[in-house]
């Protein structure tokens, strides 16, 4: 399948903005606004060009104020439990107070990782590189 060229550049731009937000935050952990600005730009670009992003990237962005969520620095993470043994993780953005609930199911397989999704399209250039760099950058940011 042919990669659409203008999308590839757009994905590179998204990727760059995400990494830039991490870089700025790692240099100065009190400057949340600039990271928020970069993530807002990233979301605008993705929204205008209707680009799909990987869930692992979307989970670290706040939906309301679009700041970068890093547990410990910009967001608090807590474990909660409903009575019937369903546990979930709640991440709360410190700046706007919006909380994000994620279910703790270790057997859950994302759509992107399933073999059916892989068969329809080959690797999108934007998504996979983002995963790798996310891990590297997160490891750099943690004290």
């Amino acid at each position: 399948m042919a990669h659409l060229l203008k999308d590839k550049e757009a994905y590179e731009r998204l990727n760059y903005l995400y990494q830039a937000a991490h870089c700025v935050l790692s240099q100065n952990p009190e400057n949340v606004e600039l990271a928020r600005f970069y993530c807002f730009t990233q979301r605008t670009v993705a929204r205008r060009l209707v680009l799909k992003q990987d869930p692992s990237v979307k989970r670290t962005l706040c939906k309301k104020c679009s700041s970068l969520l890093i547990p410990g620095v910009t967001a608090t993470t807590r474990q909660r439990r409903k009575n019937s043994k369903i546990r979930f993780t709640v991440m709360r953005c410190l700046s706007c107070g919006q909380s994000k609930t994620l279910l703790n199911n270790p057997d859950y397989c994302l759509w992107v990782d399933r073999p059916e999704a892989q068969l329809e399209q080959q690797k999108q250039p934007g998504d996979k590189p983002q995963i790798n760099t996310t891990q590297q950058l997160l490891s750099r940011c943690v004290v």
Partner: protein
Amino acid sequence: MDEALVRARIPQDLVKVLGVESQSSSKAEAFTQAFLKNSIQQHARHDLKSMLSHKAVVLGYSRPKKDKTRRNSKKAKGLNARQKRAMKIFQIKPEHQRYELFLPLHELWRQYIIDLCNGLKPTCSPQSVQQKLLKADFHGAIITVLRSKCPSYVGTTGILVQEFKHVFKIITKEDRLKVIPKRNSVFTVEINGFISHIYGSKFEQRAGERSAKRFKVRGTLDL
């Protein structure tokens, strides 16, 4: 003291297991300060250090009051313009922030642009590079004002920190934040030997919108 224990680095064998690495002590210090500032509630009034050294600090009550706003409105998406104004833009941190802190960002930008054009000056034609630059992102680039209708702007150089609809925000070497309007100015960007001029009047779009917009050749390229 016990503080030294908290700040000690993680031993090497744990690094691989956990997948995280310790940072240098100055950065760790900065992160700790930021974290403390976020957690402690009354930081505005007292100095942090004095608070911590004197007595026990209340980090939070055991049962915080739940939000009384309508529990039913699950969808709290979006923001009003008021909230945007309250938060988003730069505060007066640049006095806090120095030029050196943005140099890694510039390095990142340089690598990004080299990847985007996948080549240097001899290989690609300037045309294709220009096309890519139109849609590219300039946050973190070192930008200089070449010509401008207002002569006091000419010669200003710095790293682009934010791009808004009609202005660029630049931080100069003297750690000053300068706001430069795009209209009636010519900027120049240099990428390891490849110099490109940008006519600011044609670039009056929000940073995100520019990658979605197609540019037409319209009008003369004058100031």
